[in-house]
């Protein structure tokens, strides 16, 4: 009798909740579970009520008596962040700058069919692929919202992914630092990524693909970049992990061409075209330790080296650093300190891709970076980032940048 009464109650509730089917189903489940906890219903009765409710809702939907959130919305997941920044710049012989900046990003991922997804994201900023910042200026000018990435991901196997379109670079080319790639750059082209466990606490990482750098309607020798990367993650005991990796980049048809968004610090001819190829070998190594100290649970050393095989001089770059604190800064109270030193010679790498905050993204520079991050609450992170960099060759000019960030993720 009480079961019938409850089913009747549920039916009555259904008729007044046309537009909130999913939250309604959740509320009925909570209600029914409470009744089980209090011993009013037994679990089998509860299950029958829940199944009847679901089946009634399905019937009502089938007859068009209820409306639902469209299926394509249900298949999507969203995420985004807002970063508020105060930035101070000081460069020798130039005036100091104080800027208020912000960055907004919104991304989504949708299941198209089984094993195929589409991801896309929008961001603030201009056309520069190395920055999504918007500086507060021009009397409240309405800024642009741009396409940050739009790609397809096909996963025919659990360990194999294919990406096509404008993809998130970090999902394909994994780096332990921004020596070569600014963290805002998302790449265009296609790539395969393999991530497979080999047993013995070892994961194998492989990626390869081709990136389209430019296209000309009057020239068939368009610049492209072929890349391949291989690495392993080797866990030693419960406390240590070692990640050696090596990447090879072959920027094809860039010699004799000029690339958009270049800082023009690579070697150029009289027509402002690049005089070298960029065939860069890039080994990296990470050593991470999970410590027994509760205040500093994580410590890591990392480094990387890059060498462009075409020129004979000014063709090397390197970076080394350490970090400690928490491995990730997400939950309230978590923190991390990071220090890096780097040198990137004039023709070690294309000055179109390197970190735009480190001496404006130029090559032929060296210097240090210090980062401190602290989570004020879950997904609310306060960060301090200080750069001190200078040109390698005379005249040596030093640049300092301090960024104070409040990052809010959702």
């Amino acid at each position, binding site marked *: 009798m009480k079961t019938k009464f409850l089913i009747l109650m549920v039916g009555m509730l259904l008729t007044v909740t046309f537009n909130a089917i999913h939250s309604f189903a959740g509320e009925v489940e909570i209600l029914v579970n409470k009744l089980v906890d209090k011993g009013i219903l037994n679990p089998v009765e509860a299950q029958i009520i829940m199944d009847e409710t679901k*089946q009634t809702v*399905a019937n009502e*939907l089938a007859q068009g008596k209820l409306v639902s959130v469209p299926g394509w919305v249900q298949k999507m997941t969203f995420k985004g962040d807002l970063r508020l920044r105060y930035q101070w710049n000081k460069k020798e012989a130039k005036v100091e700058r104080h800027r208020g900046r912000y960055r907004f990003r919104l991304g989504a991922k949708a299941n198209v069919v089984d094993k195929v997804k589409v991801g896309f994201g929008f961001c603030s900023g201009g056309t520069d692929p190395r920055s999504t910042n918007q500086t507060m200026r021009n009397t409240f000018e309405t800024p642009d919202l741009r396409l940050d990435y739009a790609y397809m991901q096909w996963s025919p196997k659990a360990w194999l992914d294919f990406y096509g379109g404008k993809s998130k670079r970090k999902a394909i080319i994994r780096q332990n630092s921004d020596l070569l790639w600014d963290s805002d750059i998302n790449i265009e082209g296609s790539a395969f990524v393999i991530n497979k466990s080999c047993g013995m606490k070892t994961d194998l990482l492989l990626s390869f693909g081709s990136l389209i750098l430019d296209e000309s309607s009057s020239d068939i020798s368009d610049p492209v970049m072929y890349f391949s990367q291989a690495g392993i993650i080797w866990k030693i005991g419960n406390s240590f992990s070692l990640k050696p990796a090596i990447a090879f980049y072959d920027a094809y048809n860039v010699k004799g061409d000029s690339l958009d968004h270049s800082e023009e610090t690579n070697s150029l001819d009289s027509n402002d075209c690049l005089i070298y190829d960029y065939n860069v070998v890039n080994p990296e190594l990470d050593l991470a330790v999970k410590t027994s100290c509760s205040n500093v649970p994580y410590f890591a050393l990392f480094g990387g080296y890059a060498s462009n095989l075409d020129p004979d001089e000014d063709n090397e770059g390197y970076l080394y650093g350490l970090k400690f604190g928490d491995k990730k800064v997400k939950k309230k109270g978590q923190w991390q300190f990071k220090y890096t030193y780097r040198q990137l010679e004039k023709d070690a790498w294309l000055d179109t891709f390197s970190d735009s905050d480190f001496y404006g993204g130029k090559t032929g520079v060296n210097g240090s970076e210090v980062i401190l991050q602290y989570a004020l609450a879950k997904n609310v992170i306060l960060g301090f980032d200080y750069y001190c960099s200078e040109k390698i060759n005379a005249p040596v000019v030093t640049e300092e940048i301090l960024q104070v960030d409040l990052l809010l993720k959702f």
Partner: protein
Amino acid sequence: MKRCLQVLAGIGLGLILTTNLYAREMVQIKGSDTLINLVQRLSEVYMEENPGKFIAITGGGSGTGIAGLINGKCDIANASRLMKSKEIKQANSRKITPKRIVIAMDGLSVIVNDRNPISKLTKDELGRIFRGEVTNWKEIGGEDMSITLYGRQSNSGTFVFFKEAILKADYSQKMNRMNGNAQIVEAVKQDVSGIGYVGVGYVKKVTGLTVVKVASASGKKYISPLDAEDVKSGKYPITRPLNQYLNGIPKGAISHFIAFELSEKGQRIVEEEGFFPIPSEYSDFNNKNLGM
């Protein structure tokens, strides 16, 4: 002449057999991989006892069975999940009136390799594992090794049920999608880092696996799906009814077979096949749906 007589005799025998087959009442059953072994056994015993009757059973997953019922390709759809609104709409448009009955109870079982020390998990932990939010066993108190997920394909009712009951979101993209329960059992037996979910009927007599105890929430009691009383009473957190869908109130051979499945003898076979008999609440539910 002798050869001609032999051919004619052969044709005659063939005609007699064919006519005899058509004279037998045939019931077509299609659907759930979880239910196929159980219903196969039920039909074998039923046909032994009823020589004039013939039951044909195929698998393909709950989705395939329900599609078969809608398209008139079968009389009974085995389903380990409920029908979706889209399917009901299709059925209605073809003048099919789906009726649901419950023939057995299943404690959907989470399995790991027996070399993995993990033996109990909460529903929340299971959700995080299969959504891909937890990727290493050490994050939930196990050894430092990556988690390998084994689940079913999207046409499976078990795939849908586990997703709705546990994940409440999408499965991890990294989950290996296997054809059936038996393939998941084999994969987890061979993979020390593996975890999968299967009907309880597939794990009762298998070695090399640990059947994980599950709690509805942190702090609540961990319960094994091998405990018949806890599954029958619904206390095991991933208890589910195993269903059959029919077109309207059954008559004739279909009704006769359903009555056998729900009889004492039928329910004993359910137990012999590793599942659990339906409790009285579901008997009442079936009687109501069958108009009894």
